């Protein structure tokens, strides 16, 4: 691969690039799934290609190809240069990448059992038995389960001297039961319907214990058919860690992306309410709220060695004791922010969050693992301490505005909390709020024993679209004065 990366970098410099980087990626992904007791087609995706990013006359160009040959390297690099020259036709400020990042290293995901070494028959056996166990009654109309294994092998090199090899392994899966009766439709999934995914091996699937959860998933789907509608009103809300993970993703992760803040995602995803004047001044949440972007969390889906600009993985505080203190940054935006704040741009280091969904996409600022640090509460004590409220679990729907202020989430399941105990089961639970008001209402977070990371393998951003893999650590937490029951 070194020969190929050298061809691209030399060609770019000969054509006048002041900076160039190249990523060569080979990837293999395997999906095994079962639906309604029938094994679906096992599918394997194997792809390889490269992308070249150049700066010419202060402007960016990028081109990519699935044909991995020396000739194509030359052709595509020249194409990237031509594209950069077209970008320069409408340029306001020359790209400044700040300090040089010239790391030479190798990173490999630590794992115990390679998920590709687990026989397909074993995977199908697990899913078929799980599927059978979820079918607890005639009202279960759809059952499904899936397992995913990912292996990505990437080489990154830049004209600054970076030379990084990374091998990432991911393993994920989920199961779901859908109950339908008399026009009512209720879903229950585990760990969630999108699939939980980690940078771990098959040991992650063993830990998920689909077989142990299958019957519960089916029973809960059926119970929801006859559950009461979630009441409407303002109350105390306790969220489980998976729903809280998505709450963090949407209302903290996305608005702290500095490219959104600077308006470069305005046409698609939107911008952010966390404008630079709010840095170190906005009370984002209560004093209990500590949020961190941590690309080093062991096993989490947003964990890696280096981002796709060759910047090392880091742990960056975003909210400290409730105060908004940091952004997710790239080399370019970190420099822009420093300049805006009157700091020396030559010292502005990227937080290492530039990630591309594949060889055919440019890196964008993406979440790594955005974690809510654990608090001090035991979960049983938290419920016992709550006189009246609602407990919600597992995401069903999610929506948030383009500044990331007004959100509304639905969950698969909810329980009344009365007198410190769980009460009635509710269906179609929803809650809504405004981001800083919601997080300032946080008055309890469970402790490290209840904390875990949850992978989001479907985070969309960018044009052309990219799907990122992010992680979110959280423990159940309590929020006061939340509006619930916005269904009708």
């Amino acid at each position, binding site marked *: 691969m070194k020969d190929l990366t050298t061809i691209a970098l030399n060609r770019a410099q000969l054509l006048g690039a002041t900076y160039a980087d190249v990523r060569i990626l080979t*990837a293999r992904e395997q999906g095994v799934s079962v*639906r309604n007791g029938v094994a679906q087609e096992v*599918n394997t995706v194997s792809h*390889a290609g490269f992308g070249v990013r150049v700066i010419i006359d202060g402007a960016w160009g990028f*081109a990519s190809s699935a044909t991995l040959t020396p000739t194509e390297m030359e052709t595509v690099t020249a194409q990237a240069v031509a594209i950069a020259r*077209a970008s320069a036709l409408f340029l306001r400020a020359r790209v400044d990448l700040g300090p040089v990042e010239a790391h030479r290293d190798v990173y490999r995901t630590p794992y115990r059992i390679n998920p590709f070494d687990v026989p397909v028959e074993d995977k199908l056996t697990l899913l078929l038995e799980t599927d059978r166990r979820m079918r607890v009654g005639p009202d279960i109309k759809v059952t499904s389960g899936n397992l995913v294994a990912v292996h990505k092998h990437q080489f990154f090199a830049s004209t600054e001297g970076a030379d990084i090899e990374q091998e990432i392994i991911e393993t994920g899966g989920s199961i779901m039961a859908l109950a339908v009766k008399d026009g009512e439709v209720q879903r229950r999934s585990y760990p969630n319907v999108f699939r939980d995914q980690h940078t771990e091996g098959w040991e992650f699937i063993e830990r998920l214990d689909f077989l142990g959860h299958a019957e519960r998933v089916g029973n809960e789907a059926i119970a929801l058919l006859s559950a009461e509608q979630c009441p409407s009103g303002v109350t105390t809300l306790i969220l489980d860690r998976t729903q809280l993970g998505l709450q963090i993703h949407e209302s903290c992760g996305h608005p702290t992306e500095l490219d959104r803040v600077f308006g*470069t995602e305005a*046409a698609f995803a939107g911008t952010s309410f966390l404008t630079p004047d709010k840095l170190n001044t906005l009370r984002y949440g209560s004093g209990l709220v500590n949020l961190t972007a941590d690309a080093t969390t062991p096993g989490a889906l947003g964990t890696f060695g280096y981002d796709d600009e060759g910047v090392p993985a880091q742990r960056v505080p975003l909210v400290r004791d409730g105060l908004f203190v940091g952004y997710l940054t790239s080399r370019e935006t970190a420099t822009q922010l420093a300049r805006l704040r009157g700091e020396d741009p030559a010292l502005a280091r990227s937080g290492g969050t530039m990630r591309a969904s594949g060889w055919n*996409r440019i890196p964008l600022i993406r979440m790594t693992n955005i974690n809510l640090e654990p608090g001090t509460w035991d979960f049983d004590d938290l419920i016992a301490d709550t006189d009246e409220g609602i407990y919600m679990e597992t995401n069903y729907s999610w929506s948030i505005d383009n500044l990331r202020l*007004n959100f509304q989430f639905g969950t698969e399941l909810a329980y009344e909390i009365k007198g410190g105990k769980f009460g009635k089961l509710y269906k179609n639970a929803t809650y809504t709020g405004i981001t800083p008001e919601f997080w300032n209402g946080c008055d309890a977070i469970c402790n490290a024993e209840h904390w875990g990371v949850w992978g989001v393998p479907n985070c969309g951003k960018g044009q052309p679209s990219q799907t990122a893999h992010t992680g979110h650590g959280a423990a159940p937490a309590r929020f006061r004065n939340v509006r619930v029951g916005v269904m009708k």
Partner: protein
Amino acid sequence: MLNHNDIKDLLARALQRSRADETEVLYLGLDEALTRFANDEIHQNVAESNHALVVRVAQGKRVATLSTTDISDTGLDRALEETLDLARLQPENPEFPGFGPPTLFDETPLAYDEATAAATPESRARAVGEVLRYALDRDVNTSGAFRTARYDWAIANSHGLYATTPTTLADLTLVAMTPTSSGYAADAAWQVGAIDVAARGREAVDKAVRAQNPRPLEPGEYPVVLESYAARDLLTFMGGGASAMGIHEGRSWMSGRQGETLLAPQITICDDPTNPALWPMRFDFEGTPRQRVDIVKAGVVGDAVYNRLWAGKLGVANTGHGLPPFSPFAPQQAMGGFGPMPMHLELLPGDTPLEEMVKGIERGLYITRFNYTRVVHPREMVVTGLTRDGTFWIENGQIAYPVQNLRFTQSYVEALQTVRAVGNAPQRERGYFTISSAPALCLEKFRFTGTTGF
């Protein structure tokens, strides 16, 4: 990118080298370029040349699928052997309908435009530049993306089916912003020349200018005029309910209601792959001829769309709405299977100009676009989302002033039961891998459940 003969040869070689009982090969190639701009400059400018060969083999009723970018003979042999090995490990799939019957399709392209395929970074930059200049003159910050692409799709199987087509697509999205407002415009067409970039730019910029300094508005139920962009959201969700899979499984708004008069008589929704104004296609990704399907006809819930699996399971005719088993360009996206899906949705136009709709409202809202819409409950198609890029208060038949964005939580089924008027000017827009078209809608009531403060 491979040319027509290369593709034909590749598929023939793959079928010839396969040792499986049945083999299907699908070639997906693309040359796609996108010029993206924000803050009055081009900041992301990209090109992609990509291809994948999706191999499906069946050994009896044991089926497996593999996608590869390695299309050398060695790569083909490896892919075919591995897929066959995987198929042998599978239990029999009693639902497998077999691959498509021998069919030879007309190879004349239906939607191919050389100017679109040959578009350059300079031509896209020049078009975008007109928008940037117009916006700068008005102190408006614009951002957006202008994409041109050529796609090659071809499918062949061991039964003798062969279908191939090159096709092109261009699409534009624009968001114009002032410190207190934004505006939006979009278009999509298979001929880049059919997109009037400058006109769309004026539309977005002028909207942003008019929407400045919005006033707060209390949530509640209001009559609404939905511009075509907002109306398209209703079309997308309602049309998505036409999948035979969702209907059969009881989770679609159409489940158990086919033949029933459910929506207002002005509402007709179809999926029309033959309409040259959208993105016409002869065959689906299983090699079945695509057919027009009337999903709602004058308010009456109509037909579902089918692929080979669901047509076979339910014993009905296949309408040609099959997707690839998964997207090789976005792996992991199709776990569990999409089922059949409409790709050419149209909400048929009525005869009411937009201005007439506004004149007919005493107190209500004018909405450019919806954002981040998600299903809260599928059966009644309850959806939540927000207004974006230009929301206005209508009073006494006139647009009175801009208002801050609102959240809605609304059953789209109920919304389409109280239709005052359907617009006479449909607007195209690109979805994930589709083009759809909707006119403006005037609805009796729409339920807003929250505010944003901006």
